[in-house]
């Protein structure tokens, strides 16, 4: 799983441009399921056939990034955000375009107070001498992702895009363990989560599962003077009670807790006040789909170096395996 996390976090895939990451995941899922299909939103839907309940497991494959909105005469790029990007996180970072071009984000230095800096006052420098020079490398509308190494250290993983490539890696690992069940499992790698939980909506409409889980990251409350939250890195996967987009269906939540306790899998309960997940758009699709989530506690979400615990990821796989194998 660690190798997959490393590969997936370093594969290009901002919202709306998920082709490369989808191809990469397709390669890893090919021999583990009965059927793989995509829809107009680009969701990768991998089906393990069965005669039991239809269970949808969703992990989003898109990541945050930037989009070029304008190229000036001197070859500097102006840009907008794809997904939630606090300006202070963006500043001074390097970004990589799909074709490998690297750029540096800086700001107009004549600003009176750095607190007033916003994305509109920032630009990307790709080392171009002129607009013409820049346009050989990048066009308006091109997207880029943040650069950041993937490092495994002391049982933790530090990387860009753990949100939500760690969820993708967990689903791939689960499929590899070939759960022993009659339930029909839909491993769904969704698109455009970061811009409004979009892919999951159409994927769920196409499947109409009996139940669904979003496998995504959640915040923690275990860093110096942070916002309080009863989730810690390394204390086990978090069973979703609610986030800003969904209140987990009580049966799903209770089932997850029961399975974790029966099988001695460590777990925590997640109440995330900021941020939503694919469960938010799945649960109101069609006639309503009982939905919940299993989350990986992650520090510094949407930073270029997020941190999660490998043990939490492994325990998430164990919990999900028990879930899809359960009789409903």
């Amino acid at each position, binding site marked *: 799983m660690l190798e997959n996390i490393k590969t997936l976090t370093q594969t290009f895939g901002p*919202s*709306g*441009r998920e082709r490369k990451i989808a191809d990469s995941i397709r390669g890893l899922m090919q021999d583990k399921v009965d059927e793989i*299909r*995509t*829809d*107009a*939103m*680009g*969701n990768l839907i991998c089906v393990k056939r069965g005669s039991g309940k239809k269970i949808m497991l969703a992990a989003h494959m898109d990541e945050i990034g930037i*989009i070029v*909105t*304008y190229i*000036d005469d001197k070859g500097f790029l*102006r840009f*907008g*955000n*794809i997904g939630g990007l606090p300006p202070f996180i963006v500043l001074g970072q390097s970004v990589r375009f799909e074709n490998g071009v690297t750029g540096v984000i800086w700001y107009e230095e004549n600003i009176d107070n750095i607190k007033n800096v916003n994305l*509109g006052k920032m630009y990307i420098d790709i080392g171009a001498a002129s607009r013409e020079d820049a346009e050989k490398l990048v066009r*308006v*509308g091109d997207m880029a992702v943040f650069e950041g190494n993937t490092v495994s250290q002391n049982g933790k993983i530090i990387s860009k895009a753990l949100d939500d490539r760690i969820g993708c890696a967990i689903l791939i690992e689960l499929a590899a363990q070939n759960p022993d069940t009659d339930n029909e499992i839909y491993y769904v790698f969704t698109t*455009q989560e970061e*811009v*409004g939980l*979009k*892919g999951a*909506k*159409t*994927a769920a*409409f*196409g499947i109409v599962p009996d139940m669904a889980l979003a496998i995504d990251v959640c915040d923690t409350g275990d860093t110096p003077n942070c916002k309080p939250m009863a989730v810690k890195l390394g204390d086990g996967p978090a069973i979703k009670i609610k986030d800003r987009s969904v209140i987990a269906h009580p049966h799903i939540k209770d089932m997850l807790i029961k399975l974790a306790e029966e099988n001695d899998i460590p777990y925590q309960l997640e109440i995330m006040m900021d941020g939503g997940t694919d469960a938010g*758009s799945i649960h109101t699709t069609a006639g309503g789909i009982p939905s919940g989530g299993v989350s990986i506690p992650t520090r510094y979400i949407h930073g270029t170096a997020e941190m999660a615990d490998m043990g939490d990821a492994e325990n998430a796989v164990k919990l999900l395996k028990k879930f899809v194998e359960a009789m409903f």
Partner: protein
Amino acid sequence: MSALENLKKLTALDGVSGDEKQVRDYILSQVKDYVDDYWVDNLGNLITYKKGMGSGPRVMLDAHMDEVGLMVTQINSDGLLKFQTVGGIEDRVLVGKRVRIGENKVPGVIGLKPIHLQDSTERTGAVNKKRLAIDIGAKDREQAEAKVEVGDIVSFAYDPVEFGDNKLMAKALDDRVGCAALIEILKERYECDIYGCFTVQEEIGLKGAKTASFQVMPDVAIVLEGTTCYDLPGAEKQDMSTRCGHGPALTIMDRSVIVDSELLALLTDVAKLKGIPYQYKQTISGGTDAGRIQVNGTGVKVAVIAVPCRYIHTPVSVMDISDFENMIRLAKEVLKTIPQVGPDGRFIKAAEEEHISLYKEEGGKEYA
């Protein structure tokens, strides 16, 4: 009637979100002879169907009928009317504007304390709509209540004017410009089946498009819009969004949608091939019906073609007539070449390749 005449007629009509009947009735009178079927749904969308001559994807064309406006919320004892905005209108825009209220089109004006009587803080401070009221010339509440009711819809009362270098100034260009274009597009027949949807309540949350697309279940949708434009003195080039007279604007991304990259490539290729000017919308602000339509059913390939409108969401928006004409041309040409959509949600390869080679012959470059 010419497309421009239709546009002028449409901007003179009132259709604030939730009250689009006047606009819908006019549009229906203009399109009913050109379409094979039509219906009005529970939300008030006008959905028209034009059968194709052959094969092709199921295409939804969307233009919203509604415009921003006001609603009467209270009638004061002095006969002045308090109001709320319907859709995004900046408070500063409201001052000194002529309006008409309700079905009887009672004339009114949004007044403000005269400059002579304002103190310096009032003159330099921001206008707040809480301090504004509509004056309908009534001397007290009783007189006012004889003419208007709480809940009455208020529209700006401005007629369209052609002026300057091929420009049109009007209220409600957002999105009567899309409605007029869609009427024109429906006059021709194409290979693919077309569902021309004139939607309601876009300005208050992309509502009509949700129920319209649920009924149509399209493979592909093209949204025809009026969009932001700020090509004015003092504007930094990167902040202009679009420029008047530089061709219809294609959205890559805004707050509601990241458009389908295949469909966007098709639009730009067709534009280049046919020599139709176009520009990209160079900011990611605003939202359109495309955001709702895209996530309908199992997903829809969406794009947005928009006419740049200066002073959008004011009663005096300004557009270049050539941008409007080129939006119609581009949409028609794209509809002629649009390929089938496969079960994987991508354009069917054969058609796509044919299209690429066609463009390559003309010296174009390959798809990205």
